[in-house]
């Protein structure tokens, strides 16, 4: 493990920290809306990782006004892929929220532990 390399790659380290905190929120909080927020933070960490992989030092954004071989551009492929990923993450969030509203209508709570207690009493 190379320590100076880790210090130079602090974007990747920040992406890993976001991933771990999002996973911590999803694991420990019993509230369902908090779990959805944690899932969104994990998504954002993945986007941060991919976009920072595509960056090139001193590059311009990939809009080619005057074509010349001297100009450097950042890699446009991770940007396009993550543009797709953002829309899919919003779709997943909306469906999860619809399920949460349905659960609240059925059980009267959105706390996982209380839902487990109610279900065990029903049986």
């Amino acid at each position, binding site marked *: *493990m*190379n*320590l100076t*390399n*880790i210090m*130079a*790659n*602090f*974007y*990747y*380290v920040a992406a*890993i*920290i976001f*991933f*771990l905190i999002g*996973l*911590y929120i999803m*694991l*420990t909080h019993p509230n369902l809306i908090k779990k959805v927020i944690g899932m969104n933070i994990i998504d954002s960490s993945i986007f941060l990782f991919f976009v*920072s*992989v*595509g*960056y*090139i*030092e001193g590059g311009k954004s*990939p*809009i*080619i*006004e005057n*074509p010349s071989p001297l100009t*450097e*551009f950042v*890699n*446009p*492929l991770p*940007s*396009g892929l993550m*543009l*797709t990923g953002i*829309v*899919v993450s919003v*779709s*997943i969030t*909306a*469906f999860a929220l*619809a*399920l949460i*509203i*349905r659960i609240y*209508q059925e059980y009267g709570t959105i706390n996982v532990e209380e839902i487990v207690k109610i279900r065990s009493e029903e049986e």
Partner: protein
Amino acid sequence: MKKNIVAMIMLLIIGLGLMSVVGEMPTFGERRFFSEEEMYDRYLQQGPEETGSINIVSAIITDYRAFDTLGETTVLFATVAAIYGTLLAAINKDGDD
């Protein structure tokens, strides 16, 4: 409280594994490793002639990978259909009772 400590230890192990991967990765912003590849050169050199769009990102998502975007519109349609199914089923069930 015990659950939090177990989760912390687990996340620490996962974090150490991921951090070792970062230690082996090439430096941020360096051109040589990630970007000197065929697709990068192809998109940036022949993109404006082949698609007529000088914005390469929109050229990628709606011309080179248009089939991908078609699948994504299907995802959006499926989301709306699933939300209608989830929430309207409750109304119909209440009406029956």
